[in-house]
């Protein structure tokens, strides 16, 4: 399986912070994403797994440059080897990079589903869209409905279709499956798989660990706004000995099917991040070095890990 694939998206030391009012008139910068590393190759599904509030959805917004105005982005993003500038982001989004939004609120409430899913593309991809709807078991009259008439699951399937309809090379799916029935979710994931097999790439943002390592090729583990480890999905199936970061190991052990044993402590809040390694306060292996400096990204056994001790 080890074949050299083209690197599609490369993210280096990405940080996103928000200017927020704290108490009264004072403003404070909240670092929602810090020093994030992520590489996506064409032909693969990369899952981003982490709890709500760990900054997963923000990453999607940062890649597409659709963050709110009070956010500032630092770091480097490269798409197909070229720097991803604001200009290029504007050009690529919707054509080469497509988003499956997280919520139904992203649909225009005053527009019928059919024309809305067809989008601005010329010629209108109506035929393709009908086929997609059919695969998703969306009844034929769906295209004549307004968003408020859809059930949660139907809306999700429409949202996924809007991304699949494009000729995008990279699809960012932000929590695409909640609300869908099991078979619909599987169908959606199968379609992502097909897209990946055709040489495109999918970033699957999810809080569902099982889903992440069932369908992805690689899993990026998110913690407090950064990727602590990027591992092959198969490593998660093998067990903690194949994983590199103490947090990933702790995740594995806390899964209900594995041990249901939690480690103590909490994910740090964006306003009060520790100075060094973000996981240090909860880490059983921490040393003085961990508390002083953020560990660099290291490559170990085909995965990337941000830890001094990971092996």
């Amino acid at each position, binding site marked *: 399986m080890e074949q050299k694939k083209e690197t599609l998206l490369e993210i280096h030391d990405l940080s996103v912070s928000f200017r927020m009012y704290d108490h009264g008139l004072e403003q404070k910068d909240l670092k929602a994403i810090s020093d994030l590393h992520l590489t996506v190759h064409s032909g693969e599904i990369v899952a981003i797994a982490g709890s709500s509030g760990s900054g997963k959805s923000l990453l999607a917004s940062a890649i597409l440059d659709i963050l709110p105005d*009070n956010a500032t982005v630092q770091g480097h993003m490269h798409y197909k080897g070229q720097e991803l500038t604001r200009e290029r982001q504007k050009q690529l989004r919707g054509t080469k990079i497509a988003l499956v939004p997280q919520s139904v609120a992203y649909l225009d409430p005053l527009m019928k589903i059919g024309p809305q899913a067809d989008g601005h593309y010329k010629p209108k991809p109506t035929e393709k869209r009908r086929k997609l709807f059919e695969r998703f078991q969306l009844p034929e009259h769906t295209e004549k409905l307004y968003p408020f008439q859809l059930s949660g699951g139907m809306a999700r399937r429409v949202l996924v279709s809007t991304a699949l309809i494009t000729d995008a090379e990279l699809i960012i799916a932000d929590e695409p499956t909640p609300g869908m029935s099991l078979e619909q979710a599987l169908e959606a994931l199968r379609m992502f798989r097909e897209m990946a097999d055709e040489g495109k790439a999918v970033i699957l943002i999810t809080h569902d660990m099982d889903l992440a390592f069932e369908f992805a090729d690689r899993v990026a583990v998110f913690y407090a706004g950064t990727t602590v480890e990027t591992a092959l999905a198969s490593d998660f199936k093998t067990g903690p000995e194949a994983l590199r970061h103490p947090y990933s190991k702790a995740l594995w052990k806390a899964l209900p099917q594995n041990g249901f044993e939690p480690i103590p402590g909490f994910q740090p809040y964006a306003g009060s991040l520790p100075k060094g390694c973000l996981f240090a306060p909860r880490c059983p292996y921490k040393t003085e070095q961990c508390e002083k400096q953020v560990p660099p990204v290291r490559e170990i056994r085909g995965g990337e890990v941000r830890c001094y001790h990971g092996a």
Partner: protein
Amino acid sequence: MKSLNHRTKVVILTAVMFVLLVAVYACGILISEEAVTGSFLNAKRPPCLEHPFGTDALGRDLFLRTLKGLSVSITVGLVASLISAVIAVLVGIAAANGSKWVDALINWIIDLVMSVPHTILIILISFALGRGLKGLLMGIAATHWCSLARLIRGEVLQLRSQQYVAVSRKLGKSSGWILTNHLLPHLVPQFFVGLILMFPHAILHEASISFLGFGLPPEQPAIGIILSESMRYLSTGMWWIAVLPGLTLVLIVLLIDKFGDHLRMILDPYSAQE
């Protein structure tokens, strides 16, 4: 010096407007009656250094009269909108908390009041209560609560469907307890912003009703009275009697309106991070 952030600027601006309004109000109160009694020697002077707004046909200084009139307007506006806002909160809560028919009845009354032009309604109420300050206050108070009441009703309905209110009920809390602890604190910003945005309307209505002769008595130095007197002299070329007090009124009204807008910006969580 580091540059000020948006919220700080808005707060400073709001404070400046507030001080300005209070200053106008205080001036009007502090000006003595003698200062606005004129002499015929000074009558019909166009604006000059001594009399920035000129004088009227009786020789009274129009600048001082306008200030005094404005302070009367501000008092009337404030009291009337305060009564109106309190009515709005009570009615809004009653509509949202009561049974279906209470809601229907209140909505019907709101529609009814809103369907009649305010000016006509105020004239009727003011006339029925014997004109003067009391009639005018009641008239304005009775007509301005409708849209705020609707807003509050919607807000309460939305709050009542919140999960934390449902949880509170299951934790054994009574409706009254939920109203005072969960609902009312959320309505405070709505109340104040609604009150201040109602204020300029009330002032304009006060002026127009007095202008039409159904409001304050002619001896009161109200803007409406000044404007209605000015009509008699406009044709003789005494433009300043109408233009300058009128412009001042418009300025004050705009000032209050902006003040309300800014206050909303500060209090509204949606624009809080701008």
